[in-house]
C-alpha cells in the first residue's frame, strides 16, 4: 500500500465521475495546443512566403481577397494580360520586375496540383521592344531586376520569380509535385491532353509553390480557355519608389485592379495569426474558468462523498497533511493525464486540420507538451486545493455521525 495505490484505486473505482472533469480539461488543452501549433506554422509560412516571394507589390483583380493569393491565386477572378503590357510600357519609375501569373487546378494520379502560367523574361523584352520604352530599357538602380539577371538556371524561378526563357512544351515542377509524381529533369509529363518536357524540378521552398507546375502563361491560358487573362502580377518595386507612392501610381494606371503591397499582405496574415493567438488566449481563459470550475466542483463532491472514508483514515492515524496529499495527488494525475492527452489530440488535430484551415503544413511541436502539461497540472492543482483543504480539515466525528 502506497499513497499512489490509494489514489489510483479510488480513481479507477469512480472513473465515470471523474470523466466529466477529465474531458473538460482534455478538450481545453486540445484546443490550446492545436491553435498554438497551427499559429506557429502559419507565422513561419508567412515569413517563408515573404522571404521566397521576392515581389513586394501585387496587382490582383478588384474582387480578390488577400487570402486568395495565398490559396494559390486561383479563385476565379482575373485581370486582362494587357495590364502587364501597360505596366511594362509605362514610364513608372521603380518597377524592377514583373511576373504575371494565371493558375488553374489540375488532377494527376488522383492528386490535385496547381498549374501556374508564367511569362518568361524574353517576352517582356519583346513587349518592351514593341513600345520602344519601358522597364527594360531604362536604367535600374534599386537592385534585382529582370533586365539584370544573367543566370540561365531555370531553378532561379523558385527564388527570384523570373525565368529567362520557357518554351510552350516546357514545364517546371515544384518539389512536392516532383516527389509525388516521381518526376525528374528531362521527364515527359502529360497534362490536360498535352505533352510537356520537365525542364527542372524546383528546390523545396516550404510554400504553396512546392505544389505548383509552372508552364508558359499563354499555354495555361489556352488550357484554361479563359482568353488572355491572368490572376495576379507580382511586381518587384524599388523600395524608395514605393515609399514615394508607386502603389498609387500603379492604381491610377490600372484603376480596375487592386494594388497592394506585401506589407499589407503580411499585415493581413499577421492579423489572422494575432486573431488565432487571441483565440488561443481566450480558450486559455475559458478553460481556466470552465475546466477549473468543473474540477473544483467534482473535487468538492468527491470530498463530500468520501467523508466517511476520510474520517476512517483519520481514526486510523492519518494526519491532515496526508489527506491533503491524497486529493492533490489525484489532481496531479488528472492534470498530467489531461495535459498529455490534450497535447496528443491537439497535435493530431493541428497536423490533420492545419493544411485545410490555414493552408500550411503543420508538424508536431514537442515543446507544446510542456505548456500543455504545465497549464493542465497548474489548473487541476489550484482548482483542487480548496476542496482538498476542506477534506484535510474535516471533523472525523462529524463524518461518522452524518453518514
Amino acid at each position, binding site marked *: 500500500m502506497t*499513497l499512489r495505490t490509494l489514489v489510483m484505486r*479510488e480513481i479507477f473505482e469512480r472513473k465515470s465521475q471523474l470523466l466529466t472533469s477529465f474531458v473538460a480539461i482534455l478538450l481545453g488543452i486540445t484546443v490550446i495546443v492545436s491553435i498554438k501549433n497551427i499559429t506557429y506554422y502559419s507565422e513561419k509560412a508567412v515569413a517563408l512566403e515573404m522571404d521566397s516571394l521576392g515581389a513586394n507589390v501585387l496587382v490582383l483583380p478588384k474582387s480578390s481577397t488577400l487570402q486568395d493569393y495565398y490559396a494559390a491565386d486561383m479563385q476565379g477572378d482575373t485581370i486582362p494580360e494587357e495590364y502587364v503590357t501597360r505596366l511594362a510600357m509605362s514610364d513608372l519609375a521603380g518597377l524592377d520586375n514583373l511576373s504575371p501569373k494565371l493558375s488553374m487546378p489540375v488532377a494527376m494520379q488522383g492528386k490535385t496540383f496547381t498549374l501556374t502560367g508564367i511569362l518568361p523574361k524574353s517576352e517582356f523584352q519583346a513587349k518592351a521592344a514593341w513600345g520602344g520604352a519601358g522597364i527594360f530599357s531604362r536604367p535600374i538602380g534599386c537592385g534585382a531586376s529582370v533586365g539584370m539577371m544573367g543566370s540561365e538556371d531555370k531553378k532561379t524561378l523558385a527564388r527570384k520569380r523570373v525565368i529567362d526563357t520557357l518554351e510552350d512544351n516546357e514545364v517546371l515542377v515544384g518539389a512536392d509535385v516532383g516527389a509525388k509524381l516521381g518526376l525528374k529533369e528531362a521527364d515527359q509529363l502529360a497534362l490536360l491532353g498535352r505533352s510537356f518536357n520537365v525542364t527542372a524540378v524546383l528546390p523545396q521552398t516550404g510554400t504553396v509553390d512546392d505544389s505548383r507546375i509552372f508552364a508558359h502563361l499563354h499555354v495555361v491560358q489556352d488550357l484554361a480557355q479563359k482568353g488572355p487573362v491572368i490572376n495576379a502580377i507580382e511586381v518587384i518595386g524599388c523600395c524608395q519608389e514605393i515609399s514615394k507612392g508607386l502603389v498609387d501610381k500603379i492604381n491610377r494606371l490600372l484603376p480596375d485592379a487592386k494594388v497592394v503591397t506585401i506589407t499589407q499582405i503580411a499585415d493581413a496574415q499577421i492579423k489572422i495569426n494575432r486573431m488565432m493567438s487571441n483565440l488561443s488566449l481566450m480558450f486559455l481563459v475559458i478553460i481556466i474558468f470552465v475546466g477549473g470550475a468543473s474540477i473544483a466542483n467534482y473535487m468538492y463532491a468527491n470530498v463530500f462523498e468520501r467523508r466517511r472514508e476520510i474520517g*476512517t*483514515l483519520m*481514526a*486510523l*492515524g*492519518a494526519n491532515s497533511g496526508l489527506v491533503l496529499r491524497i486529493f492533490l495527488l489525484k489532481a496531479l494525475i488528472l492534470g498530467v493525464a489531461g495535459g498529455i492527452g490534450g497535447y496528443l489530440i491537439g497535435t493530431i488535430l493541428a497536423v490533420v486540420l492545419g493544411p485545410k484551415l490555414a493552408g500550411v503544413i503543420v508538424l508536431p511541436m514537442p515543446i507544446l507538451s510542456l505548456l500543455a502539461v504545465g497549464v493542465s497540472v497548474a489548473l487541476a492543482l489550484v482548482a483542487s486545493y480548496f476542496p482538498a483543504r476542506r477534506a484535510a480539515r474535516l471533523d472525523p466525528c462529524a463524518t*461518522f455521525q452524518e453518514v
Partner: protein
Amino acid sequence: MLRMENVSKIYRHRGQPVTALNGANAEIPEGDFVAIVGPSGSGKSTLLLMLGGMLSPSGGRVLLDDQSIYELDANARAQLRKQKVGFVFQTFNLVPYLSAMENVQVPLYLVGQDGPSQEARAEELLRRVGLSDRMHHKPCELSVGQQQRVALARMLANDPAVVLADEPTGNLDPETSQQVIEFLEEVNAEGRTIVMVTHDPQAAARAKRILRLDRGAIVSEKPGRKTHAAA
C-alpha cells in the same frame, strides 16, 4: 492506562447548547475490558471518540498513559492513535475500493512500513480472523460478518495497546456477534485494553466491567459476568 478527569462536552445544535458529557470521570487500567452502556443520546459514542483523541472536550482532561491527549496538536494526536489505538466501528468503515488485504495494510502504511512487510502482516492477520481465502475480495464481495472480521484484522494491524469498539456487534447476527466478542476477549487476553460501547446486554456482560452512562455522566459501575464468575 486511560483516564477521564471531569470531562464535559457541550455541542451547539441550532444555536442551543446540548450537553453530551457532563463531568464524566473514569479510570481504565491497562488490560481492562470495559463495556459502556446506556440509552441512546447518553453520550456513549462521544466518550469513545474522546478516548480515541478524535473529539476534544469542552472541559476536563483525557489521559492516555499519563499523557493529556488534548494538550497535543491534531497531528500529534493522529500519531498517538496510529501507535496505540485501534478502532472498530459498527458499520466497519472499510475503504470500499480496496481489497481486504489492502484495507488491513492501510494502518501499516500510515506508520511507514514497506510493502512486503505490510503484505506479510496483513496476510497473518487475515488468516487469524479466518479470511485467508478472501484476501483479495473487496468489501462489497464479502458478507457482513466477513467485513467485520476484516475490520478486526485492520484494528490489530499496528498492535494497539487500546482497542475502542463502537457497537461492534450492532449490525451482526447472533452467531457472528458471538465470534466478534470471542475475538475481543482473545485480544484482551493478550493484554490489550478494550473499551466497547454497546446496546447489547449479552455483549456487555462479557466485559470485565460495565459502566452505565446517563445524561452525560457515569451513573453506575458493575462487574461483568466474567468477573462475577471469577469471584
